[in-house]
């Protein structure tokens, strides 16, 4: 039985990496196989699904799916270009910063899908190659996503499993996310500053932008801002109300659906159900791994390797997660790591707090290193290729690896001083 589970799991991981079969199909097939061969019962499978994570994801997807139709996010991006007074370098840095801020509150893929059209329009007006802007959007969406509980799916997973609330998350991860954002912007500036030159005529075009034209629907804008405000307020006040994150997000979703009073079908279709089912499959797969004791063995191995030392274990998780996230999807990786870290706690009794933060940073930032390291990277490179600006694997690696590495070094220092020293 043990061997069967390991084989199914490794096979599933391999297929997910190879992308020969869609990751959701792989995860669901693997999950159902575990039930069919009797490793876990259906009840155990259902119990293994973290509905708080799913509820939070679905709730946020519904809210953002409706809110983005108001044009509010693009309004901000266009406004920023104007604030940059048409000068390429300030615009480049501001768009990067906005990507990071949006990404802190929106899913990374949603963020890049909102930013990329603006990036193309701005670069075209400035008669600049859009590639530096595209690469900047990838890097900063992953860095910004580290800041909050809702910024990146791994954060939701970790927050839900480790009972970390919204405020705790932003207080702990906000500062390092901000530090790495500025570091990344600084390095991007040094890398691209000579390419970011535009004629006065091109700059004048940007100055003629009327950001208000980006607003598609004023009524929807007000409703969306209201609901987003309520949801953020709900997250911030969690320690008083004790409402779970999923409850708050789904309250917002229900409220926005009531306010917009349209047929919910189109809005519900915008929820990325394939991602949701991917999570469900992974939760069940990992439940099987936990049940046969595979995760416990891995935890013991890791503790043997680090000698049970808190500092060594934390750093191993930070750099190990970063490495794995650069190569594989960070969602299955984090789903596997969560019970592993819990087992480390159960076996050794060490303080798990630094380990959770190391996992967040490693998984979120590590994805930046390669063009296939995170979903946002893959989405942007797909669009870039279609528009004739293909981002080659090595071309991306050359700039992304040093930037990711520098960010991780800062994160190492941050974790050391804040949690270990």
């Amino acid at each position, binding site marked *: 039985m043990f061997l069967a589970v390991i084989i199914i799991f490794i096979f599933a991981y391999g297929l997910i990496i190879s992308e020969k079969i869609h990751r959701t199909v792989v995860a669901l097939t693997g999950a159902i196989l575990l039930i069919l061969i009797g490793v876990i019962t259906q009840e155990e499978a259902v119990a293994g699904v973290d509905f708080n994570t799913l509820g939070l994801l679905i709730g946020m997807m519904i809210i953002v799916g409706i809110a983005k139709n108001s*044009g509010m996010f*693009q309004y901000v991006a*266009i406004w920023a270009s104007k604030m940059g007074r048409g000068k390429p370098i300030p615009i480049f840095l501001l768009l990067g910063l906005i990507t990071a801020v949006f990404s802190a509150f929106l899913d990374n893929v949603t963020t890049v899908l909102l930013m*990329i*059209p*603006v990036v*193309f*329009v*701005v670069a*075209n*007006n400035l*008669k600049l190659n859009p590639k530096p802007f595209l690469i900047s959007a990838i890097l900063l969406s992953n860095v910004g996503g580290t800041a909050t509980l809702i910024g990146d799916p791994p954060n939701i997973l970790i927050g839900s499993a480790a009972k970390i609330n919204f405020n705790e998350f932003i207080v702990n991860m906000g500062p390092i996310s901000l530090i790495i954002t500025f570091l990344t912007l600084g390095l991007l500036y040094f890398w691209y500053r000579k390419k970011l030159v535009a004629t006065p005529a091109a700059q004048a*075009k940007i100055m003629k*932008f009327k950001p208000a*034209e*980006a*607003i*598609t629907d004023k009524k929807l804008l007000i409703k969306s801002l209201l609901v987003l405000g309520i949801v953020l307020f709900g997250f911030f006040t969690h320690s008083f109300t004790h409402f779970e994150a999923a409850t708050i997000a789904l309250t917002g979703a229900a409220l926005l659906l009531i306010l917009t009073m349209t047929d919910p079908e189109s809005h519900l279709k915008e929820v990325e159900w394939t991602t949701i089912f991917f999570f469900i499959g992974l939760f069940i797969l990992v439940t099987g791994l936990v049940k046969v004791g595979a995760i416990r063995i891995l935890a013991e191995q890791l503790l043997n390797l680090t000698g049970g030392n808190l500092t060594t274990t934390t750093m191993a998780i930070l750099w190990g997660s970063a490495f794995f996230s650069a190569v594989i999807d960070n969602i299955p990786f984090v789903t596997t790591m969560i019970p592993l870290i819990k087992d480390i706690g159960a076996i050794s009794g060490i303080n798990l707090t630094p380990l959770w933060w190391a996992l967040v940073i490693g998984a979120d930032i590590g994805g930046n290193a390669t063009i296939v390291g995170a979903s946002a990277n893959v989405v942007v490179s797909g*669009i870039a290729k*279609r*528009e*004739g600006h293909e981002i080659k694997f090595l071309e991306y690696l050359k700039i992304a690896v040093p930037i990711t590495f520098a960010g991780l070094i800062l994160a190492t220092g941050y974790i050391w001083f804040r949690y270990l020293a």
Partner: protein
Amino acid sequence: MKQKKQYLIKDYMSDHGGVIIQESADFHQAVNLMIKKKTNGLVVVDEKNKVTGILSSWDLIRQVVPNYLEGEENLSSFEDADIFSQRINEVKNLPIKKFMTKNVHAVHPEGTLMEASTLLAKHGIRQLPVTDQNGTLVGYLNRTDIKRAIGDILNLN
């Protein structure tokens, strides 16, 4: 007493009206043909005169819009004006096979006008190619033909 008519496609179809283009043509040739023949729709056929697609001016216009502006009507007002001509130069050699409508709603001469009306109404199209058993183009049926049939029934013609 008049004999009851069946209202079949073959009674109302015409063998002219549509402009044919070979499926090996590209964007540039398609636009050229549409301008010359003053039409917004082409029937795409292979070398055996078999219908393989329909190309409308919508398909051409869609090619001009970059992917990143699809569904971004408001953002498109910010786009640089030069991108329009730049895009056209980028897509001018694109084979029409890549962007024509492949799912052709063709009808057979023996089909009924009700079938044709259902298709025209549902898809909001102007004209249906009429093909024989082998998929070879034998004629066209358009909105005017249906209108003519309606007129016949109402004794207006």
